[in-house]
């Protein structure tokens, strides 16, 4: 009857799941922690980098504007001095020539009308533009910085410039005027164009109102291809500002209301490295998990495969136990122990099976033997011969006795197929046998019974005493039957019953004693002592049986130990 087991997880699956599960959880947790730390570090780096790039630019541009301020000072000094217009012209034109980024020096009225201008090799147009000074506040040094515009003074010359103006009262002009320099962006571009963090980061200059002063992509912005949204930035204080896409750092310059903004993109500085890190972690973790999985499977194999081999062998054993040959299963030490235990189990069971088989055989043999003995021709017709002779010579009483003994002998031998009979009956059986044998051996031996009443109702295996007595007669007395005596006793000894067949025959040495108990008398007539002993053992257990004591030339005693089992107990 097979017991149905509920669907349970196999050992290997459990092992693998456990190992991989724990590993996965650990790794995910530590990766999350790492990634967040890493991202934070990247952001910090980006912000720091942006700030540094701004400070660089601030330094450079500050120097630049300070230099411009100083230049303006010098120009004003020149104008204040006594130099002639011609000398002024030479001097100023040389100044403009020497500086790459100076597009011209000019003097305007406070309303922006051009009074004088100097640039090498150029003469002013008739119609020139007015200087737009609306909404421009002076800076800390009292200078005015315009927004970028196209210089509109000289013919066929239209550079983009920023005009720096200094109001001053000059004797030369008699009234307050604006002394200006027009600065081109070449030098500023040189400072600003390559400053930036990352491949796409950059810096630009804007003024207080958010108007662009210089941007590395100014042409693109003017052509409408790009936009730099400076309005929201204009209202912000100096500082570091992070939004979804970029980090912007704003710093004001000390002069001219200019502010430098550095933009770096989180995408390339944070998001991409982050994604790369995530991807790398993911790949290596997956790889590690796969390896773990494989290792787990391998280990599980080491454990569960042997177990399954074991199970398979058990199954084979179940099907064909007797012929089963066990192949040891190897694996871990526990598996080895299991394997050995199973091997012992198999051998033990096989032994037990053999024993049972043998016991059955013994029992069957006894049946057979008993049957044989029962129809042992020699014994039978010798006895019948004797009976016949007795009848012929008229010894009818003896004949009656013999017939009766014979009948009793056979009846008890059969005992209606029962294996266990009361001792009473066994004694009867023995006595019947003795009666017959005594006559056959012409009263050359005597016998007597010493039987305790109490044991008569206890059971013993049938045909126990008779073979021993037979032995005693045949071997104990042999030819020298004279004065032989057989005493059969039965008494209770403690919890047990002891039967004894004692004779005063020739006796045996120790070797022969042992031989008697071990020799199987198959093939010979009659049931041997071994058979008796075997049956006692079978029916009552190994602690009961036969013991032979013998002394050569003194006699032999055969003790039979039985338990006290009364008839109702069976």
């Amino acid at each position: 009857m097979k017991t149905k087991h509920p669907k349970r997880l196999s050992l290997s699956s459990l092992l693998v799941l456990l190992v991989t599960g724990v590993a996965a959880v650990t790794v995910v947790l530590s990766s999350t922690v790492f990634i967040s730390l890493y991202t934070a570090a990247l952001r910090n780096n980006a912000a720091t980098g942006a700030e540094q790039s701004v400070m660089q630019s601030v330094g450079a541009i500050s120097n630049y504007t300070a230099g411009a301020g100083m230049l303006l000072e010098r120009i004003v000094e020149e104008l204040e001095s006594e130099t002639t217009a011609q000398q002024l012209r030479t001097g100023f034109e040389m100044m403009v020539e020497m500086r790459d980024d100076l597009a011209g020096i000019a003097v305007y009225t406070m309303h922006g009308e051009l009074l004088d201008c100097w640039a090498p090799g150029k003469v002013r147009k008739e119609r020139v533009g007015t200087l737009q000074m609306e909404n421009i506040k002076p800076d800390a040094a009292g200078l005015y910085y315009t927004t970028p515009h196209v210089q509109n003074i000289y013919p066929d010359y239209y550079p983009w410039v920023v005009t720096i103006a200094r109001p001053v009262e000059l004797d030369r002009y008699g009234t307050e005027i604006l002394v200006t320099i027009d600065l081109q962006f070449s030098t500023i571009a040189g400072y600003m164009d390559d400053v930036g963090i990352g491949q796409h980061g950059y810096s630009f200059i804007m003024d207080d109102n958010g108007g662009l002063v210089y941007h590395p992509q100014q042409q693109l912005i003017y052509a409408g291809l790009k936009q730099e949204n400076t309005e929201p930035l204009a209202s912000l204080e100096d500082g570091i500002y992070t939004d979804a896409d970029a980090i912007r750092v704003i710093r004001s310059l000390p002069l001219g209301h200019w502010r430098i903004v550095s933009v770096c993109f989180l995408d390339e500085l944070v998001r991409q490295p982050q994604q790369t890190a995530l991807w790398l972690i993911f790949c290596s973790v997956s790889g590690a998990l796969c390896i773990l999985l494989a290792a787990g499977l391998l280990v599980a194999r080491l454990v569960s495969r042997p177990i399954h081999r074991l199970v398979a062998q058990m199954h084979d054993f179940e099907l064909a136990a007797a012929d089963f040959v066990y192949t040891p299963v190897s694996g871990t030490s526990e598996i080895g122990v299991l394997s050995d235990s199973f091997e012992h189990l198999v051998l033990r069971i096989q032994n037990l099976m053999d024993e049972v088989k043998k016991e059955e055989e013994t029992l069957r043999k006894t049946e057979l033997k008993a049957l044989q003995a029962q129809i042992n021709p020699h014994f039978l017709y010798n006895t019948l011969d004797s009976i016949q002779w007795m009848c012929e010579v008229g010894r009818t009483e003896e004949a009656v006795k013999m017939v009766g003994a014979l009948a009793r002998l056979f009846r008890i031998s059969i005992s209606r197929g029962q294996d266990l009979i009361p001792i009473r009956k066994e004694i009867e059986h023995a006595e019947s046998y003795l009666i017959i044998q005594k006559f056959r051996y012409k009263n050359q031996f005597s016998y007597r019974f010493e039987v305790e009443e109490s044991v008569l109702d206890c059971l013993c295996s049938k045909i126990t005493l008779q073979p021993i007595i037979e032995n005693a007669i045949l071997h104990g007395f042999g030819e020298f039957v004279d004065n032989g005596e057989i005493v059969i006793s039965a008494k209770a000894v403690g919890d047990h019953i002891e039967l004894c067949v004692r004779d005063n025959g020739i006796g045996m040495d120790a070797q022969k004693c042992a031989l008697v108990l071990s020799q199987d008398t198959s093939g010979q007539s009659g049931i041997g002592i071994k058979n008796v002993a075997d049956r006692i053992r079978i029916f009552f257990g190994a602690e009961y049986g036969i013991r032979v004591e013998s002394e050569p030339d003194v006699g032999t005693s055969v003790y039979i130990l039985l338990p006290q089992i009364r008839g109702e107990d069976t």
Partner: protein
Amino acid sequence: MTAQTDRKGFFRKRKSGARRAGMLLLLFLLAGCTMTEQTLQPQKQKVAVIVKSTESAFWKSVLAGANAAASEYNIDFSFEGPQDEEDWETQNQLIDRAIEDGAGAIVFSAIDYEASVQALERAAELGLHIIIIDSDVKSERVSVRIGTDNFKAGQRAAYALLNTSDKLKIGMVGFDTHSENGRKREQGFEDIVSGETGAEIVAKINCVSQSDLVKKETEALLRAHPEINAIVTFNELTTLGVGYAIEALGLGDQIRVVGFDNNVISVGMLETGEIDALIVQNPFAMGYLGVEAAATLLSGKNPPSDKVDTEVRAISREDMYTEQNQKFLFSFTENIRS
């Protein structure tokens, strides 16, 4: 029996488990390989920019724009054009050379609407992307078209010319009749003028785009039709030629002139009166957007649109120095990198 089949099934499961794990591992290794490919620097793509000429301020602006886009998108580009703006044969040769040089895309401005179609379509067959800037060709194989809406530009020129109380007798000085944008501009102009009662087109000539030749032909036109008090002309070089003619004849105050495009000289003439209004295009944007579209196509993506109209402004003497017009009229980068 059941126990036996369980046993077999179990072993099968073990084997497939190992196989599955092996396949997963392989997958991750492959993924890793493709990722490393991504992080490696991509090779620079080649783009051939073939324009009508490389000398005038217009095309120099196109070059500046193309340059800006090329450095932004990491593109290797060549910038070529024939000596004069009528030589479509050289353009076709340049197309062939671009194919041989292994360009991935051609940014093209066509001298002739039809004569370059075959060469371009051959390039398209071989897998090159075709992007048109400024002047179109008659072909379906063009991926993106970037340029001025020339018909509208012609209309703007008409509006600018008509922005006066005088009755106008107009002389039209066109350029190459095979050029698509030339034709379209003339059509746009005529479209507006034909509906005006106070204006009349007196004469129309088409010149080769060389300023000295145009100067001569304009002078001849004015001598032939002294009643002309307004001239419209449709590209940079014809504008210069007309300007020179007006200057030479001293008729700046008498003749109202509307021209196209901006360079230092025509802007100067705008100030001094030979020219009254300029229809200014955005060649920087054309060059930039052209190369940008090429970069997008070469990276396997589709550009946002297959037709882009770049900005056109009518700028007159009165408003040429407004903040917005300054930005449009005067190049920023030219004046830094001198």
